């Protein structure tokens, strides 16, 4: 592998070697990887046309694997992974949004949290150790997440769903749902009009042809 540096990056480090970037991927600064400790091959996949803008950041433990689908936009916010976060194609993430595969600890597991904190103090880099179980997160295609929202460990969000700003998601969200609040609740469902034809037309509009055929066939429906 060769060392890759971003042109005009204000942060003086190369990109991690164990990340796989598709065509037309944008990464604003290598700063986003300042807590990227994955040792997987690859630890991160960013598919074609996806982007990490501003101070979007990706913090991972050694076992973590993160996938960001085609044309997904991370406009700030953070991904925190010790296991697996999979984000589909054409998703939008606003600033301050946190997606994590860590679960909230049970209060009675106090010994585990104490041990983790003592371990951290013996490490000059003070890398965080897991204090609770991890559960993979799966976010399907064309999901829009509003600013300062939190998507917690073990959650699946269905295709086309919208998460309002400052929402805390701790349960699975069905496709095309609009979900808001803390604790979160579903307020309505959207018309599933984001067909394969719509996607192809959008790509053709910019002279693009998708290398990936991950977009599901027509007929996905919102639950009635």
């Amino acid at each position, binding site marked *: 592998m060769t060392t890759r540096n971003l042109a005009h990056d204000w942060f003086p480090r190369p990109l991690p070697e164990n990340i796989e970037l598709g065509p037309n991927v944008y990464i604003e600064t290598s700063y986003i990887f300042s807590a990227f400790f*994955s040792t997987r091959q690859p630890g991160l996949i960013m598919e074609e046309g996806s982007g990490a803008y501003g101070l979007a950041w990706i913090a991972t433990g050694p076992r973590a694997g993160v996938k960001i689908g085609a044309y997904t936009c991370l406009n700030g916010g953070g991904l925190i992974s010790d296991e697996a976060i999979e984000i589909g194609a054409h998703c939008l993430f606003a600033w301050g949004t946190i997606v994590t595969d860590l679960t*909230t*600890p049970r209060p009675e597991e106090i010994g585990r*949290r104490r041990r983790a904190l003592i371990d951290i103090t013996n490490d000059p880099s*003070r890398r965080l150790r897991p204090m609770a179980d991890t559960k993979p997160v799966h976010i399907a295609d064309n999901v829009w997440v509003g600013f300062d929202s939190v998507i917690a460990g073990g959650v699946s969000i269905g295709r086309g769903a919208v998460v309002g700003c400052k929402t805390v998601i*701790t349960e699975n969200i069905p496709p095309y749902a609009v979900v808001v609040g*803390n604790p979160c609740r579903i307020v309505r469902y959207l018309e599933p009009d984001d067909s394969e034809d719509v996607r192809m037309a959008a790509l053709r509009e910019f002279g693009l042809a998708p290398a990936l055929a991950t977009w599901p066939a027509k007929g996905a429906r919102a639950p009635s």
Partner: protein
Amino acid sequence: MIVETPPLHLLAPGKRIEGDWFGGSVPENIVAGENTRIDSSACFRPYRAKGPVGLRTGANVTLWGTALAPAEDATIEIGDDSWIANAVLACRVRIKIGNRVFIAGGVTITDSDFHPLSPAARLMDTVAISPAGDRSRRPPIDARPVEIEDDVWIGINATILKGVRISAGAVIAPGAVVTANVPAGCRVAGNPARIVVGEA
């Protein structure tokens, strides 16, 4: 190969931190325990304490990208082995954090409302804090100390408001807005935060 993160720097009063991207220095009026580390003097950008001790930490504390914002007469106290990252500690009188407390990114802890509640007093405040005003003549602002006891875990983007005591071993779920005391060993979630039982 993994990109190495530089080790965090030992915290000591009045020192400049070697290789710090932020041009500031650590204030003189702090007390830092052994092996307490910090990433940058940028943490002290909002530090206004003028008293003998504006920040007191125990040993083995980690402070990472955290806004340490005690007002002139205020003190922030942090016990041993606590870990705080990307949080805001906005302190008008006293914020006391115990031993082995974990505070995740995006957390705000404040012991005041920053401004008065009544419309007339608030209007006064806008003038007093304006470039043409005088901050020493601001109207009274309600402030009540916050205390976070040992072994508390605070999740991402949670908010702890004035006068709250979080008792030992409690867990604050991500995004929770804590407006009332939390009993020992409980988990709270939501806005406003309420006690939850079972999986969450």
